Structure formats: structure tokens, C-alpha cells
């Protein structure tokens, strides 16, 4: 019973292989895909993934901190001119009419501010 099943499986695989051009080619060459081929594909895939990761990290850093990222894994502390120039909308209030409601004036003593300034100037 087992032998019959194995024979059916083997025959069907042979015909399937003949129909598929890729498999037919590998059948013709060596009848199998080598381990090295698989490793090369994985290696290329990993390299592409690394490149993508680096690009994503660079974009994120540019957006987040204004710190550029270079391929040597070193962060440049000074913001580059590139990341200073992204588009920021300009507020336009010329066409806006606003109320003239008088605001409540809250005036307090500011001696604390001048004393704090003196202390800040004395910090060593």
C-alpha cells in the first residue's frame, strides 16, 4: 500500500516538474535548488531589509529630533540644513476679523522674578 502511494506521489511530482518551467530548469541542471542559492536569496533580502531600516530610521530622526543619521551609526548632534527646510505653514491672520473684547488685567507683584534672576546670575 505504502509503495503504491510513494510511486503515485513520485510520478505526479515528475509530471508537475516538467510543466513548471522554473522547476524544469532546475531539474535539467541539478534536479534541486542548492543550499547556497537559498542562502544568497536570504542574504540579498536581509541586505535590502537593512537598507530599508536605515532609511526609515533616518527619516524618523529627521522628523523627530532634527538629528541626522549616518551609516556609521553615529549621530550628528548639529542639525543639518536639510532637516531645517521642511515645509511649515505660514499663519495668515490678515483676513481674519477678531473681537475687541477687553481682557481682564491681572497684575501681580514681580519681586520673586528679579530675586530669581539674581540667583541665576550667581550660579557657578
Amino acid at each position, binding site marked *: 500500500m505504502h509503495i503504491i502511494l510513494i510511486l503515485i506521489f513520485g510520478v505526479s511530482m515528475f509530471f508537475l516538474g516538467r510543466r513548471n518551467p522554473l522547476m524544469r530548469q532546475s531539474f535539467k541542471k541539478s534536479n534541486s535548488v542548492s543550499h547556497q542559492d537559498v542562502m544568497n536569496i536570504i542574504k540579498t533580502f536581509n541586505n535590502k531589509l537593512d537598507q530599508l531600516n536605515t532609511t526609515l530610521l533616518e527619516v524618523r530622526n529627521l*522628523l*523627530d*529630533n*532634527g538629528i541626522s543619521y549616518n551609516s556609521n551609526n553615529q549621530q550628528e548632534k548639529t542639525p543639518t540644513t536639510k*532637516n531645517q527646510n*521642511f515645509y*511649515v*505653514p*505660514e*499663519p*495668515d*491672520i490678515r*483676513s*481674519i*476679523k*477678531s*473681537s475687541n*473684547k*477687553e*481682557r481682564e*488685567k*491681572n*497684575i*501681580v*507683584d*514681580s*519681586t520673586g*522674578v*528679579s*530675586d*530669581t*534672576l539674581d*540667583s*541665576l*546670575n550667581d*550660579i557657578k
Partner: protein
Amino acid sequence: MKTVGVDIGTMNIVSCYMLEENDKMQIDKMRNMFLPVSTDILQTNELTDTQIDYVIQKDDDGNDQVFIIGDDAFKFAQIFGSEIKRPMNKGVISVGEIDAIDVLTVMIKRLIGQTKDGCAIYSVPASAIDIEIPPVLYHEKVFNKVFKTLGFQSKPINEALAIIYAECRSSNFTGISLSFGAGLTNVCCAYKGQQIITFSVSRGGDWIDQNVASSVGVVESRVTNVKERDLDLTNPKIGKKKEKRVREALVFYYEDLIEYVLKHFVQQFNKATDSLNIDDEIPIIVSGGTSKPKNFVELFRKVFNEGKEFPYDISEIRQAENPLLSVSKGCLIYGLWNNTKEKKLNSQKKDAPKTKSKEPEK
């Protein structure tokens, strides 16, 4: 030069500046929110005679759009039970509100006015450690343009560091400050006025309001109103049944917020112990609009003492003198201090003897 300190918070914008009269300072506050009103309900010409803070702007089709702004927006929203719009979310400019930048510019203009050569120091949050928030750099760039439109040179300062400048004079500007805001809770550890650790966590007053509103089934602005009116965190059993439920839920979520913030707080400071060596006892200053309810500090102390051991010795845990004002005051102090330093530097340059390069004698 007019120097102003502006606390740009998710819930409130607070400004302060020195007056020309001796030892006087003007403080102004506006809710950072707006309410679009249909022109069918409120005609634009009807608004001019009212004492309402509003703006009228043209939309893309050339039609008038009316927005009630600031505290009036908050009042209107409570009366009509409608949801208000917020120009900011999680401490930074809201990505979903297309009108946010223009409305914010008008609101800041109402607070600090327009000038030709002013200097504005404004607060910004630190990056959040538990959530992705829109880039703080973009937020800074937007506000630099807003202040430039109003004639001010501007500089951002970390919100929690500003609290250190305002509140830690007695400890030589060394301490840990926690700013419980509406969108985020900001933390800063500073040594002699220099920030060492800064971070923020994504929970704040809005998180409490949203959770209470969905737990008890009321509109968020009504929860905010109860929270800000007279909430006592040690005694929530006040008022009618519905209000009592809101207060009880508020106390529950307040405790949860403090636990959450302290968990991250202890984690971050434990991580930093290798590089950070502070021998002296340091104070913890609690501030921000969300810390305003009665007995907040007592609840904070209780949760802090029950929690994990903190790696540094704490001298005291206290509340800022005025939790709503302290960030803007710190911004102003920092701005004035910078001006003094610049003046000193310029005068030193002027006084320095000019050395002419002598030609070699032949």
C-alpha cells in the same frame, strides 16, 4: 525689548511679562480651544456688539466662518452640550485641525499683542516615551512662525525645565519637576539649572476627562468643569447622585494617572542611575493645571511612598506656588536671564581692547 513668557499648553495658554512700572508683572490666560458656530445661528454683524471672544475667517468657498475662542468657547460648549475643538493635542499642534494655526495665532495675539522687536520664550513638551506623538520639531517651527508674525523673536524651552526656573531658587535650581498638563505629563530633572533628564508620558487631564466621560456617560467639557470647579481628591462624596458619580470616577482616574506617571518616572530614573550621580537631597515639584484639585499633592505623596523605591534622596514633595502660572513665569525668567547674559557678552565685546595687527618693521 518686550520679553514675554508663554506657556502653550493643550488646555490653556498662559502669558506673562514685566510691566514698565516697578516690580509689576502682567499675567493673562486663555483656554486653548475654539467652537465653530453656524452663521445661521449667529449672524456675523450680531457679534460685533457682544462681549464674546471670536474670530471670523473666510473658508475656501469665500463664506464666513465664525469661531468663538478661548474661555467663551468653553462656556458656550457647556451651555449647549457641544464638543469643542482643540488646536493642540498631546502637547503639540493638532494634525487634524486645519484651522488650528490661524486660530492659535489670533489667540496668542490677544494675549501678548503685536510688536516689532519682541522676544518670546515659549514652552514645548519633551518627546513621549510611551506613545508616538507628532514631531516636537514641527511644533516648534510652527510656533516660531506664529511669533514671527506677531513681531517676536522666539525660543522654545522644555515645559518642566521652566518650572525648575520658577520654583527651585531655594535649591539652587536643582530638582525634579513634574508638569501635569492636559495632554501630557512632562518630567525634568535639573542640576544647577541644566536639564539632565527630560521625558513625557501620554497621560494627563484629557485622559482623565475622556475616561470619566465614557465611564459615567457625560460630555467631556462637563467633567472638566466639575474637575476644575471644586474637586477635593480626598472627599468626592459631594453634590447630587450624578455629580457624586463623576467625582468618584475622577478620584479613581486621578489615582491611576499618578500611579502610571510614577511607574514610568521610577523606571526612567532607575535607568539613569549609572550616569547620574546626585549626592544631595533633591526636591520634587508638582505643577500643571491637572494638579490644581485640592489635596493632589497629598495623593501624590501617598502613591509615591507606597510605590517602588526611588534611587535618589528626596528632600520634599511640594506643589508649585501657582500651578497654572509657573511654566509661563519660568519661561519669562529664562528669557530675561538670557537677555542679561547677552547684554553682558555684548558689553564685554565692546570693552575688550581692540588689538591692531602691527605691520612688521622693516
